[in-house]
């Protein structure tokens, strides 16, 4: 049964259609693997009964030669997506026990395509973090280790549960979200493929909001092709999200076999950052050479405002978060502290319900939006955002996609960076510009660190040109031949 879980999503799909195995078999293997991997703390809620019912329904369809693009395939769902009747907490104590009475647009689309839900995946509280250590449900453990060293490493964040579940072969893919790098950075440090599509591609309806102008959902999978298959089912116009884009969704899977011959790949000199380990730069050079060998043309580009992206992000994201998280007031859902005074009830509920990092960001956000500081901080940051978006527009006059590293280091130990917020924020140094400009970005596993940990490369595309990212990403994947897997140390 375990062998089935080693298949890629596309192989599982093809096997189901050819009736080589059933969804019931596939799902049972997944459910069992999830149970035996609780040490990873990847799942907050397991839904074996729902999975069994969905698998049976899928098998009935498959038997008739029917079924959607994901018919019978077990997936994990980040706990930021509202799932009808199944606890959805965004990794926060303040939402403990919250069972939505509705389903997010994205998960509705996945179920309509035949996917099977195995459970809800752990994450940083309200997606605020780069290591999955801010979750109310405790940290997720990376399936990867430094050789024989038993030190527990982080899986990146905020989609740490998604990363661990897919990297440990518990599911064939997972939903994730990316506000500053939360798909691409965990994908990079767990040896996975993850794409943040262009802002507006995926509906945000029913996805717990963190920073609405930056949040985008996307998939995490083990191969580029799998990522293409899953993304296609997640995308699409949704009138319920006012920023959803009414555009046809391309066949991303077909793009994976497209040649990169003649494609112009930009290399931004500002992404050579002091203090980043030499192996990160070496991998980047290797990636450049691979794409060149595949026929791409390499051009140097300049993104001069790169160094201002993280500081701008840490004004814009907390500002939007402080506004979005105002809804958690102990009245309509979630935790409520006892008090006879309304204001005191609000204040105590929020103090008890939000963790330390979330409180810090709410305070920063409230401060930068408060009277007298709004122009100096918030408007300033939104102007810098314009400069960053303009940098990309100019770069795309010279190139079709941009290649960069995906994370500034391999996975680090749990607790290693927990007391230094700014050092933690730097994990998103390569990814955050993409969110600020609303562009698509994909992380692809490309090699191993000196300690044997995965490292990824990132490709950034023009708005709504995910197809080029899948073409170039698949070329990188073929050249890298990344086949390393974590050695299974977790047991039931």
């Amino acid at each position, binding site marked *: 049964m375990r062998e089935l879980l080693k298949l890629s999503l596309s192989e599982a799909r093809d096997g189901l259609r050819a009736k080589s195995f059933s969804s019931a078999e596939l799902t049972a293997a997944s459910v069992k693997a999830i149970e035996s991997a609780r040490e990873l703390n990847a799942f907050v809620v397991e839904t074996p009964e729902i999975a069994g019912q969905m698998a049976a329904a899928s098998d009935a369809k498959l038997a008739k030669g029917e079924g959607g693009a994901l018919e019978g395939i077990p997936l994990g769902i980040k706990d930021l997506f509202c799932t009808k009747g199944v606890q959805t907490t965004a990794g926060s104590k303040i939402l403990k026990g919250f069972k939505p009475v509705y389903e997010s647009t994205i998960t509705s689309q996945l179920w309509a395509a035949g996917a099977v839900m195995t459970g809800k995946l752990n994450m940083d509280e309200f997606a605020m973090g780069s290591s999955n250590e801010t979750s109310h449900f405790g940290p997720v453990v990376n399936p990867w280790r430094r050789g024989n060293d038993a030190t527990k490493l982080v899986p990146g964040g905020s989609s740490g549960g998604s990363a661990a579940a897919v990297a440990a072969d518990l599911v064939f893919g997972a939903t994730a979200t990316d506000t500053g790098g939360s798909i691409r950075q965990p994908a990079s440090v767990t040896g996975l493929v993850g794409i943040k599509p262009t802002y507006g591609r995926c509906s945000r309806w029913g996805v717990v909001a963190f920073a609405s102008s930056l949040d985008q959902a996307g998939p995490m999978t083990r191969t580029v092709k799998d990522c293409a298959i899953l993304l296609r089912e997640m995308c699409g116009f949704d009138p319920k999200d006012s920023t959803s884009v009414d555009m046809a969704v391309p066949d991303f899977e077909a793009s994976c076999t497209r040649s990169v011959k003649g494609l112009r790949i930009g290399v931004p000199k500002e992404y050579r950052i002091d203090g980043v380990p030499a192996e990160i730069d070496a991998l980047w050079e290797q990636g450049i050479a691979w794409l060149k060998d595949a026929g791409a043309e390499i051009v140097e580009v300049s993104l001069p405002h790169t160094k201002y992206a993280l500081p701008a992000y840490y004004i814009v994201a907390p500002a939007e978060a402080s506004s979005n998280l105002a809804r958690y007031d102990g009245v309509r859902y979630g*935790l409520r502290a006892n008090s006879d005074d309304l204001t005191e009830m609000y204040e105590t509920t929020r103090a008890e319900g939000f963790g330390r990092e979330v409180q810090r960001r709410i305070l920063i956000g409230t401060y930068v939006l408060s009277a007298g500081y709004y122009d100096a901080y918030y408007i300033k940051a939104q102007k810098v955002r314009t400069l960053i978006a303009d940098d990309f527009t100019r770069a795309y006059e010279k190139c079709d996609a941009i290649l960069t590293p995906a994370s500034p280091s391999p996975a680090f130990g749990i607790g290693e960076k927990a007391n230094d917020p700014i050092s933690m924020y730097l994990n998103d140094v390569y990814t955050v510009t993409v969110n600020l400009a609303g562009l698509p970005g994909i992380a692809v596993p490309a090699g191993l660190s000196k300690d044997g940990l995965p490292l990824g490369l990132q490709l950034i595309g023009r708005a709504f040109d995910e197809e080029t990212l899948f073409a170039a990403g698949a070329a990188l994947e073929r050249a890298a031949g990344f086949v390393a897997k974590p050695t299974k140390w977790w047991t039931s």
Partner: protein
Amino acid sequence: MSVDEKTVRRVARLARLAIPEERLAPMAGELNAILAWVEQLQELDTSAVEPMTSVRPMRLARRKDVVTDGGYAADIVANAPRTEDNFFVVPKVVE
């Protein structure tokens, strides 16, 4: 610009977040570290730059101003900590 304990208390009040007295000073320190770091944005001359107001250039879709949804009060209050007859119950606010 830097914040002191008094400012943290004021901002926490605006954010409806109870911060215990002994956490005010450490929190001021944490916020100042972040504010000092974002201060580097001041190096940029942005006097001629428009602030971003839309991530992708787009016009928000319009729809008819009609009721298209509703009629499920019980669902709306299903997750509320305290309810009565499909109303949210809060501490008394008017005497």
